[in-house]
């Protein structure tokens, strides 16, 4: 397992894009991006605002259709697959702006996250009697530090708690590939620290694709880092290579790289 993680070229690839392209009118938001993510690998995609990170994310998640190129996931061509089909195959994602079910409780949010994939869910029975899934939802809430808020409406949670719930919901279905869209956005420094800990403690079976503006988190979490600029992949390497790269320094922050 460890060997596979270190060398994605020979590992089972869970995601690969080939010449992935998307224009919006005349704007090339993403052009010719080849991205490979091996099973169990943690990859960060970084880049300044407008670099095309979010578009790339949405192309892989299925929100956007590519203008050109291919997306392969879980060993199949998923370029034209619907969002649900991707979810059923094991893709989970978070959202940049929390799109939680705000008028429902933490319990119901997690319960819904557990019932997304088809299978053993009996859709027309009383959900309050589904003790097995309610128990799992409670476990997820406790692991996310929301045990005491289990019955609380999500709209009443703090921003940090909502981000925790967001992550717990993405992990609920035990995804094969987890995509996080700027999970640190809007978090306080201490919440960022917590988030980093949570992400590092994710089980080894989870493959992680992280899109992040915040270099601290991206370089600490990612085993491999992809740098984007103006819609293209400009560099790829280990966190230490990225940290010391003059190119990154120039395109990312226009001089000083704010990395501690």
């Amino acid at each position, binding site marked *: 397992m460890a060997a596979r993680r270190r060398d994605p070229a020979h590992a089972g690839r869970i995601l690969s894009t080939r010449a992935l392209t998307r224009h919006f009118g005349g704007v090339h938001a993403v052009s010719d991006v080849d991205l490979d993510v091996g099973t169990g690998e943690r990859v960060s995609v970084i880049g300044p605002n407008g670099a095309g990170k979010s578009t790339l994310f949405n192309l892989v998640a299925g929100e956007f259709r590519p203008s050109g190129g291919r997306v392969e996931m879980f060993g199949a061509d998923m370029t034209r697959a619907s*969002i649900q089909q991707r*979810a059923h195959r094991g893709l989970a994602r978070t959202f940049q702006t929390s799109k*939680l*079910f705000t008028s429902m409780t933490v319990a119901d949010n997690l319960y819904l996250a557990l019932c*997304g994939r088809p299978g053993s869910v009996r859709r027309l029975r009383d959900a309050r009697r589904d003790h097995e899934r309610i128990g799992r939802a409670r476990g997820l809430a406790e692991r996310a530090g929301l045990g005491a808020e289990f019955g609380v409406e999500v709209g009443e949670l703090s921003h940090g708690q909502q981000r925790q719930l967001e992550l717990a919901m993405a992990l609920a279905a035990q995804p094969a590939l987890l995509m996080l869209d700027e999970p640190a956005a809007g978090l306080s420094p201490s919440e960022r620290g917590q988030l980093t800990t949570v992400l590092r403690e994710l089980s080894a079976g989870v493959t992680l694709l992280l899109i992040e503006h915040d270099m601290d988190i991206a370089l600490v979490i990612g085993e491999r880092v992809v740098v984007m600029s103006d819609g293209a992949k400009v560099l790829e390497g280990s966190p230490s290579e990225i940290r010391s790269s003059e190119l990154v320094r120039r395109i990312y922050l226009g001089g000083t790289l704010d990395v501690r």
Partner: protein
Amino acid sequence: MTWARANVRILVAILIVIALVAFPFVVPRPQFWVVSVGIRSLWLGIVALSLIWLSRYTGMLSLGQMTFWAVAGYGVAIMSTQNGVPYSISIPVAIALATVVGALVGLIAVRTQGVYFLMLTLATSQLAFYLVLNAASVTRGYVGIGNIDRPEFLGLSMSDRNVFYFVALALAAAVSALAWYATRTPFGLALQGIRDSPERMRALGYNVYLHRVAAFTFASFIAAVSGALALFYHGRITPGAIDLIRSIDVLIVSVLGGIHSLAGAFIGALGLTTLQNFAQEGYIQVRRITLTGVVFVAVLLFFRGGIVDLPNQLREYRRSASRQWARFRSRKHDGRTDRPSGADVSDSAGGADGRDRQQLPR
């Protein structure tokens, strides 16, 4: 505290059940109260329930519920009165047919949202209106289908107004229970998730479109039950029963009762029925539609949550009134010290003014 509140709730529920059961036996002028108010409120409440359920749990506000009401009503009338099919077959078949029509309309309508959905469903009910008007060979056009016999079962005839009332009451209770239960299932929770965030539901693997179609179909089933019931209430069905005004009436009932609560459907229906009956009888000398309009506007302006939410709303008003009163009083006191109000904050910390203030209440 919560224990006491739970007991109060149970007590209120028991009192409501007793009132509903005793209602036909204690009211004067039963033809008016039991039939024109009671039974009419029940079938009208069931259609409004279909609208409120859909709006509350899926966020889709439909003006097309009378379409499915009409399909069920005309279905029973055409099958039984014109072709001699027994009610035991025609009623379930007509309701099933209306539900299928609901599914077909839903397949198209749920692709739109907000005001487009509203317009599309309104167009559907208008389409139904003109269809029954023009398909005169089957529906008898303007005249409609009359002489509908009321069904009999277990030796009881629905021609008896009390029997009819209890059948309507039982049906209303049954569909309400069903609608309420549906919201507690994974299906119902998914609908609420879709209402809050369809993007996330899709990302979690839900088929948002099919859930919406299923919800729309379920709501049209509820409206269809009301359609069959109302056919026997009127004893006839005409295009006039599903014109634009009737579709709007369903919306008014929902808003009047409280569009965020399933119970609002029946309370709103009772409110509108009572209002319209009294207007008709000349107690209030204004035109029925004018009166309805005025009440509707008043509810929208002052009681957004409808009658169901009235206690909360009044408490809220009282609280804000007492807050304003307190502000008014303190301003009056400040006025006596002859200071510009802008200096209040800094001054109140100072010695002289602070003492001054403390003495004032006496």
